[in-house]
């Protein structure tokens, strides 16, 4: 209980000290305990480390001009890529990815292409992939009409 009261007193003293420091005063340490004195010293250090000078008007203006330039550049960059962000392009990319996946993961495609034979056991996979691509195409068409 005693510690609780001590801490509450310390909270208030430290807050008061910080207020004075931030108001530009040079307050004397409350010096109740070493602990409090250490904390006050940390506050002084924190206050001194960063200049409290406000940003100048010239700098603000210069920063705004630079910002607008940067925003313009970013916008141009975005609008270039946004031309490709259509369902049709998405469909083409996914279809190409599915086809590539099948070729990479199925050496039979390469073997059969070389030997001129086809393997019926893999037919189901190709039918499923074909159906998937058709579904994607329909979805892309549907989105375009919308």
């Amino acid at each position, binding site marked *: 209980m005693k510690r609780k009261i001590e*801490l*509450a007193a*310390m*909270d*208030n003293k*430290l*807050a008061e000290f*910080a*207020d004075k420091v*931030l108001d530009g005063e040079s307050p004397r340490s409350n010096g109740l305990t070493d602990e409090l004195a*250490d*904390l006050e010293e*940390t*506050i002084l*250090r*924190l*206050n*001194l*480390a*960063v*200049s409290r000078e*406000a*940003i100048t008007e010239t700098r*603000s203006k210069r*920063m*705004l001009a*630079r*910002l607008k330039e*940067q*925003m313009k550049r*970013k916008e141009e960059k975005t609008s270039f890529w946004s031309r490709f962000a259509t369902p049709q392009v998405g469909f083409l990319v996914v279809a190409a990815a599915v086809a590539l996946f099948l070729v990479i993961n199925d050496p039979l495609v390469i073997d059969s292409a070389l030997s001129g034979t086809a393997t019926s056991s893999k037919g189901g996979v190709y039918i499923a992939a074909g159906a998937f691509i058709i579904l994607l195409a329909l979805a892309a068409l549907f989105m375009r009409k919308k």
Partner: protein
Amino acid sequence: MQDVSDEILIQKYLNGESEVFDLLYYRHLPKVYKRVRYVIPPNDVEDVTQEVFIAVNKALRSFRGDSKFSTWLRTLTNRKVAEYYRKRTRKQEPKLAALSDSLAQADGNSFQSLEDRIFLQRALMNLPENYREVLLLRFAEGLQFNEIAELSDRNLESTKSLFRRAVMALRHGLEK
């Protein structure tokens, strides 16, 4: 226009009055700049501040007004600061990188204060978020304790207690 609330300015901006962005910028730049200056090495303060406003411009369309614009902006600023340190982590230990970059450009007299500033920034960035936030609100933004209490939905006593614990944690961080 100077007295118009942020929320109304945003509405105007969303309705196509793009020049309103300048007003929002000038109104909030000092606070954002001060906050960034407390946690980012001197050389990069301007760049990070710019990044914050680029993000504002991009995200304003999704601002729904659930919280105050200043709160939203504060969150966005913290996110950009975190992003800055995350990007640096990929190359080397973030705070050390910041330290070496800035110290390399400091001349004799400013060396000591700059070194102290960067060590403080490192200690600040290593604090738990609620500790860092209460220190930044008081020191960087200059909010009074009762304003911080209101903003963070606490009573005045617990805000002062949080502040004391934050200063204590900072002290420990500086001693390491």
